[in-house]
């Protein structure tokens, strides 16, 4: 608790203000512990990245040595061969494109559908509003996860399992999120009325105000919702593998990348290095999102606390 002493302004607390030998030792121990802990958390990831650069032979040769966690520098020329073969032979880029497409559509729909609902709940008066509020609270509290089988039977029977229909089955259920309605509602109610009133005097309609005034003022919440939608769609495994049919010979596959991992994994003759390369490729966009959108993700965590 050294920093507490450093923050005591004006007051002198002599023992802790100088770098004594004991203190330096404590710092060093702290950093050593930190590095060891970090390695405990990182080693599977390092192993994944390292193995993705190796041929089956050098993977076997490295087993049991530190080289397990290091890329295959001995064979610089063939380091990215696994990536090449995963992209060329196992069509992973098609699955990745699918995932991007699903994510983009879901983001747009999610913001439109839940944003409009959140706006109505935050700003408009209409009969039945209290009912909707009660419904929103109820649906946020009830655990929905256990209803995946009924959801499947509904989607299957309503849409059939034809190709276009099953794509709708991916997109539509992901486009509604009661929690996002709640987030939008919270955010919109903090926007001062004057903005809307000014626009209304200019002759804008309610929907016009929503798109021209409210949404542009709400960039932080829109970004947060978009980021979480992307992560959600990209990482979803179970639902797509339930409702999407396997692609026939020569057809463009419909599976998003996570669900396709199972297929890739069980291909005949795939090497450990290639499996790891496909896992790395699957994780890269999420890593990029986390780094680029850190701010919005932290905001999202903050609002996750609201959920209680």
């Amino acid at each position, binding site marked *: *608790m050294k*920093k507490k002493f450093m*923050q005591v302004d004006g007051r002198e607390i002599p023992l802790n203000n100088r770098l004594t030998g004991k203190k330096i030792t404590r*710092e060093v121990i*702290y*950093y050593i512990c*930190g590095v060891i*802990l*970090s390695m405990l*958390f*990182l080693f*599977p*990831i390092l192993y*994944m990245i390292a193995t993705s650069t190796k041929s089956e032979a050098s*993977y076997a040769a490295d*087993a*049991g040595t530190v080289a397990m966690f290091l890329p295959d520098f001995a064979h610089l020329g063939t380091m990215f061969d696994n990536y090449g073969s995963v992209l060329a032979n196992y069509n992973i880029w098609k699955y990745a494109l699918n995932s991007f497409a699903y994510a983009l559509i879901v983001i747009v729909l999610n913001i*439109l*559908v*839940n944003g*409009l*609902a959140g*706006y*109505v709940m935050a700003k*408009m008066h*209409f009969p*039945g*509003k*209290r*009912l909707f509020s009660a419904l929103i609270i109820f*649906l946020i509290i009830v*655990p*929905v996860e*256990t*209803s*995946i*089988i*009924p*959801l*499947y*039977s*509904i989607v299957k*029977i*309503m849409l059939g399992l034809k190709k276009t229909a099953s794509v709708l089955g991916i997109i*539509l259920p992901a*486009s*509604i999120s009661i929690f996002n309605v709640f987030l939008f509602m919270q955010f919109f109610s903090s926007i001062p009325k004057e903005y809307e009133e000014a626009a209304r005097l200019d002759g804008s309609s309610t929907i016009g105000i929503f798109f021209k005034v409210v949404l542009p003022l709400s960039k932080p919440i829109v970004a947060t919702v978009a980021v979480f939608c992307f992560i959600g769609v990209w*990482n979803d495994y179970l639902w797509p593998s339930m409702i999407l049919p396997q692609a026939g010979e020569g057809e463009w596959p419909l599976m998003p990348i*996570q669900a396709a*991992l199972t297929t890739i994994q069980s291909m005949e003759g795939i090497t*450990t290095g290639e*499996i790891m390369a496909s*896992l790395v490729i*699957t994780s890269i966009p*999420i*890593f990029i999102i986390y780094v680029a959108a850190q701010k919005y993700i932290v905001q999202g*965590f*903050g609002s996750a*606390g609201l959920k*209680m």
Partner: protein
Amino acid sequence: MTVSTLIIFGVFAAVFLGLAIWDAAASKKKIVKYKLRSSATAYLMLLPAVLLAFLFILLPILYSLGYAFTDYYLLTPNDIKFIGFDNFKNVFKEIGEKGTLYRAIINTVIFVVGVVPLQIGMALGLALFTNRKVRGVKIFKVCFFAPVVISLSVTSFLWLQILSPSETGLLNSLFGLFGAKPHDWLRDPNTAMLWIIILSAWQGCGYQMLIFTSGLSNIRDDLYEAASLDGANAWQKFRTVTWPGLRSTFVYIIITVFIGACRIMTQPMLMTGYQDHTVTLSYYMYTQGYSYRWVGYSSAVALIMTVVIGTITLIQRRAFREK
């Protein structure tokens, strides 16, 4: 099926309309008067959300309640018979005969009892560890958080390789250094659940670490100063300042981690398949409903599960509420 959906929707709309009219009539006496035009716009803007929420959130909940009392077989949706409590009887019969469901319950309990303390303990430890204003702490945080970024399916496939039964697998080659023979960790009933617990805690605890960190940052610094002026040592400070300050964060975390742990399914599904020593409740429910297509029976299991988890969550909330 589609007809019943329309009927349910009709009933819902009628009830809603009635309540809305009552609401409007009641409000006549108050200052707020509804304008027809703006009310219509409001409903129009709500429409997409209401339709989607009805179809994909409310209807599945209602159906799973209803299906639990029928013999719904997925391939014969037009031949659904009401069979009362037969599904529930079968559930308890399966438990009594120590069938797969019995194993699923045991495994889920093992997982929850193992992962909840482990994950929360790790998260709290890491949050306290990184709660210092020294250089490099941010890098540590990123390292601890990195596994959260990886999806559950990637995590499962990655650890499948790490725990690979061949002698070139990461774990076996490490133990091989000490002369141990290669071991099939995931097929051994004694170790499979243990490793699933470990990798789940590894993957998840960074998230709870961040929530604990934000909880810690809400504790005022002067409380610590006061404690140290009173001559409190680190443990006493933790007990008297940190712990009470983290209480509400802790309740939130324990409930969310508990509910998440009860739903475990992806890891056993991808790593071992439908095996007696790793099958969990969600996985059992999914297999009965999706692979074997017994939607009615699966819904009964889901209903029991929801009730049990909901009850335990309520008890937790009561137990940890501030006195």
